[in-house]
């Protein structure tokens, strides 16, 4: 071993670790794409929060004299068939996407997490039954499952949230179960168990905290899919019950009839969906690389 080799560990130790999340945060700040993702998400959240302040026009009421006007100083993104300002509608549309996307992913996390935690910590028969149920959910193509749930429960935001949540549930359930199964025989878990900790204490205090990171990464990436799925349902005519609501997918459906005259009605809502999805995809990938630096190349 040369002297240079020996000096390396010393230098690393000098800097010190700030714990899993502290280190991850520091790596994130040096990850360009992740920062771009974070910026896009900030933009998206600001659009949703500040829509009532920034939007120059009412997103629902329009003047028919203004209909199908191209982008201009007065209407930044043009106007739709009812003469509504497209820019204002996109700002308000961010509210629906953000709200429904976040709630749907949280619901999916709760449902999938519960299934995964029970299956992974109990194992045996409980695991077999729960995982067969997850297989059943997985055997139906996601969008059909979502369409079916909305058709079943009727149109409405809570129904859409549940529908999108149902498509993410199997993913979270499998992921958490997998990590928990891997941890069951880990030394610190065996140690906790042999010290007499109850099953629940072992699960909540020792196993879950160590299984959370992949779940957080998956949830961030699932937000991108959720936003796309919400818009997809809207595009298929299963969006919010009030057809006047500014929702990105529904706005796209309206654009299809005027592709020739008003292509901007396709581009702006389309770009909004894509940018939001890119934001969460970049952040999710960045989080994964920061939490597990071995993955980065």
């Amino acid at each position, binding site marked *: 071993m040369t002297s240079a080799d020996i000096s390396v560990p010393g230098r690393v130790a000098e800097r010190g670790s700030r714990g899993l999340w502290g280190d991850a945060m520091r790596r994130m700040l040096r990850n360009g794409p992740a920062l771009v993702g974070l910026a896009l998400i900030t933009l998206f959240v600001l659009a949703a929060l500040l829509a009532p302040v920034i939007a120059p026009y009412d997103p629902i009421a329009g003047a028919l004299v203004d209909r199908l006007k191209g982008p201009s100083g007065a209407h930044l993104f043009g106007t739709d068939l009812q003469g509504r300002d497209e820019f204002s509608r996109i700002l308000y549309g961010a509210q629906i996407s953000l709200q429904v996307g976040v709630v749907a992913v949280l619901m999916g996390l709760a449902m999938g997490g519960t299934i995964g935690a029970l299956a992974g910590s109990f194992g045996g028969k409980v695991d077999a039954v729960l995982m067969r149920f997850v297989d059943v959910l997985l055997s*139906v*193509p996601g*969008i*059909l499952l979502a369409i079916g749930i909305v058709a079943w429960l009727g149109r409405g935001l809570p129904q859409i949230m549940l529908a999108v949540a149902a498509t993410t549930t199997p993913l979270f359930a499998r992921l958490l179960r997998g990590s928990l199964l891997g941890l069951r025989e880990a030394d610190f878990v065996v140690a906790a168990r042999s010290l007499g900790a109850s099953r629940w204490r072992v699960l909540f205090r020792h196993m879950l905290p160590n299984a959370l990171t992949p779940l957080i990464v998956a949830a961030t990436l699932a937000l*991108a899919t959720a936003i796309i799925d919400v818009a997809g349902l809207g*595009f298929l*005519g299963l969006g919010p019950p009030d057809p006047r609501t500014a929702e990105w997918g529904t706005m796209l459906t309206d654009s299809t009839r005027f592709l020739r005259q008003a292509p901007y009605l396709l581009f702006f809502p389309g770009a909004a969906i894509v940018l939001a999805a890119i934001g969460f995809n970049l952040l999710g990938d960045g989080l994964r690389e920061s939490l597990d630096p071995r993955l980065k190349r």
Partner: protein
Amino acid sequence: MGKYIIRRLLATIPVLIGLSILLFAFVHLLPGDPTRAILGQHATPATVASLRESLGLDKPLWEQYVIYMGQLARGDLGHSVVNNKPVLTEFMTRFPGTVELTVAALIFSVGVGIPLGRLAARHPQTWTDGAVTVISLLGISVPIFVLGLTLQFFLSVQLGWLPTSSRIDPRLSIPNVTNFMLIDTLLAGRPEAFVDALKHLVLPAIALGSIPLAIITRITRAAVLDVANEDYVRTARAKGLTERRVDDRHIMRNAWLPVTTVIGLQVGGLLAGAVITETIFAWNGVGRWVFGAITNRDYFVIQSSILIFALIFLTVNLLVDIGYAFLNPRIRYS
């Protein structure tokens, strides 16, 4: 290997039974009454009652389920509530359309994805790699309906290069033999119609194939990078093999395993994506038909078609797993 396949086959049975119960419950819990859907709102209570009886809807739910399973076992998937056509015939006339579309999308995603992934892996951390990363990021972030509509706008509406929708120009009137448009046009001996059908296929295939393209690109890149630094690759280079031979024989051979698995797993996603793609491009396939059935509350079509969808999906997954176990002995014995 035989044991492994049997074990996996047996595991799909409870899934299918579970799904059939869920679907059955789902269909019977749907608000609205199928007899009303058939007879309309003005039917007399007597006609409604007699139709309920003839459809077996007056029996207890569990009995209806047993009857339904018996019918399934005999290959009877029921009739459409809307037009009274048998579900199986309706499915079979549309299924080739979906197969044509998904196979075309798969060919596109594999044909472009693997070379892109290899290209990126050969020049890691360069602008080429960056460009490929951006393409795959766009692939997973651009929804099918946004990409589909954008392609329609530029390539059909603006440039007029490709047709906007449907499977073939209806004026060509091709007789339906196999319901595979590409085969039927050839059987009819009409090469110009074949080209027309092929042109109709391009945009939907690209729209549907964009997500698998992104995933395949990423996995190929990662798999190639994984083996590119192995000792045997260095040895191959050291003994003076051409770069091309190292790539084909030593790197790709070992990178194939994860890539083939991921390709197989895309089929489920393609079937799901077909629902939206077929809707945008007015493509006469199973996806659009199932979606129509759900919105029209066509009970028996929903019940049976989703079951067939699931069966196809499970079969494909099973084949992927068997293929994987075949390629990777470690899986078989664990």
